[in-house]
């Protein structure tokens, strides 16, 4: 029974997923019937404030973006540990608190480190 409920829930998820995809696909397909289709080269040029675009747009970005991404990866994954811990805190008691304090201190040290390294500054 429990398992049924469990699986039913995921059937919902799948239905939502399919609907979420179906709506835009359907909408766009349906829209084809209504909308005009008249492309010509000038229309298909990327918009650059009215003048012709210069150079490739897919340039490399500032390294700051990468670093933010890296920081994000680390911190986001650390939260993975915090969630189970938060749920189970009742059972863990002070032991859990201590363990997580250590964890958070280390995490905080990492944050302080990146702060000091000026990773958190935006240019």
């Amino acid at each position, binding site marked *: 029974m429990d398992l049924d409920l469990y699986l039913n829930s995921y059937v919902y998820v799948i239905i*939502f997923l399919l609907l979420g995809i179906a709506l*835009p696909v359907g909408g766009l397909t349906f829209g084809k019937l209504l909308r005009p289709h008249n492309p010509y080269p000038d229309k298909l040029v990327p918009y650059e404030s009215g003048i012709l675009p210069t150079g490739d747009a897919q340039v490399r970005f500032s390294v700051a973006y990468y670093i933010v991404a890296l920081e994000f990866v680390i911190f986001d994954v650390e939260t993975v540990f915090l969630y189970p811990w938060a749920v189970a805190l009742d059972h863990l008691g002070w032991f859990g608190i201590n363990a997580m304090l250590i964890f958070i201190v280390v995490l*905080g040290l990492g944050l302080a480190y990146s702060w000091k390294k000026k990773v958190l500054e935006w240019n």
Partner: protein
Amino acid sequence: MDLVNMIIYAVTVLGLLLGAVTYAILFERKVIGYMQVRIGPNRHGPWGLLQTIADVMKLLMKEDIIPSQADRKIFMIAPIIAFAPAYMVLAVISWSENIYAADLNIGVLYFIGISSITTIGVLMGGWSSNNKYSLMGAMRAVAQMVSYEIPLVLAIIGVVILAGSLNLRDIVFAQQDLGVWFIIPQFLGFVIYMIAAIAELNRSPFDLPEAESELVSGYHTEYSGFRMAFFMLAEYVYAIAIAALATTLFLGGWLGPVLPGIVWFLLKMCLFMFIWFWLRATLPRVRVDQLMSFGWKVLIPLALLNIVITAVIKVWMG
């Protein structure tokens, strides 16, 4: 039979959602209008009630332009990837004690996990357009969204500690048992959540990714017609989802006296929506460097602190 019911539920939610978005847009324009001592949309239908519908019709009939230099496949699926997750997360929202779909025991995690996929859609859209504005907008959006996702997620942990569950319904029940909504014991968490949520949604004052004065229209500059509509739709659906989550986590979900649960739930959501529109009307846009350092240097440490305090108090109290 079950399956049919499920589909009916999902379709209903979708329909209602589209309606809600339609009127949320109108609501926003009206609210901001009045705040700025304007009337707002008022031509289509009484009180401008058909304005958004007219807009949608227009968008539906606009030409679908795909720039010649765009990465076609990615360009075409980006709106879908942006929209679908925003809608999917609604599967776990429990609108009232009896109206709910997926009762996942990891509801919070599901919500956080799925909602982050939207970011990828944004990035894909911006990148594939092959337009400098789009790319800049997308990059900013992504940087901002990932930066604020962490405080958002950390802020929720406080609630999870108190409730001892990741199930959204259990969290509401926990507030029922406690007799007080989590906004009280988790006020710090709530504030962090609100700020982070606004940034997640790219809403004012954190709407840098689509700062029209700098970046035209941000990551969807090159999008036109119905494709653009889906980006817009995704944003609003996501806003509704975040509001629903906030309601569940901090405002006791469907809890409330006299009125039926669902009404309470929707009212609380509307409150959040209203706050966001209000902020948009009042606050100027922040600078990008302020935005980033605020998230990393203030919100994250605060969120960590909140976790520690919450945990210690929780264990202290038994």
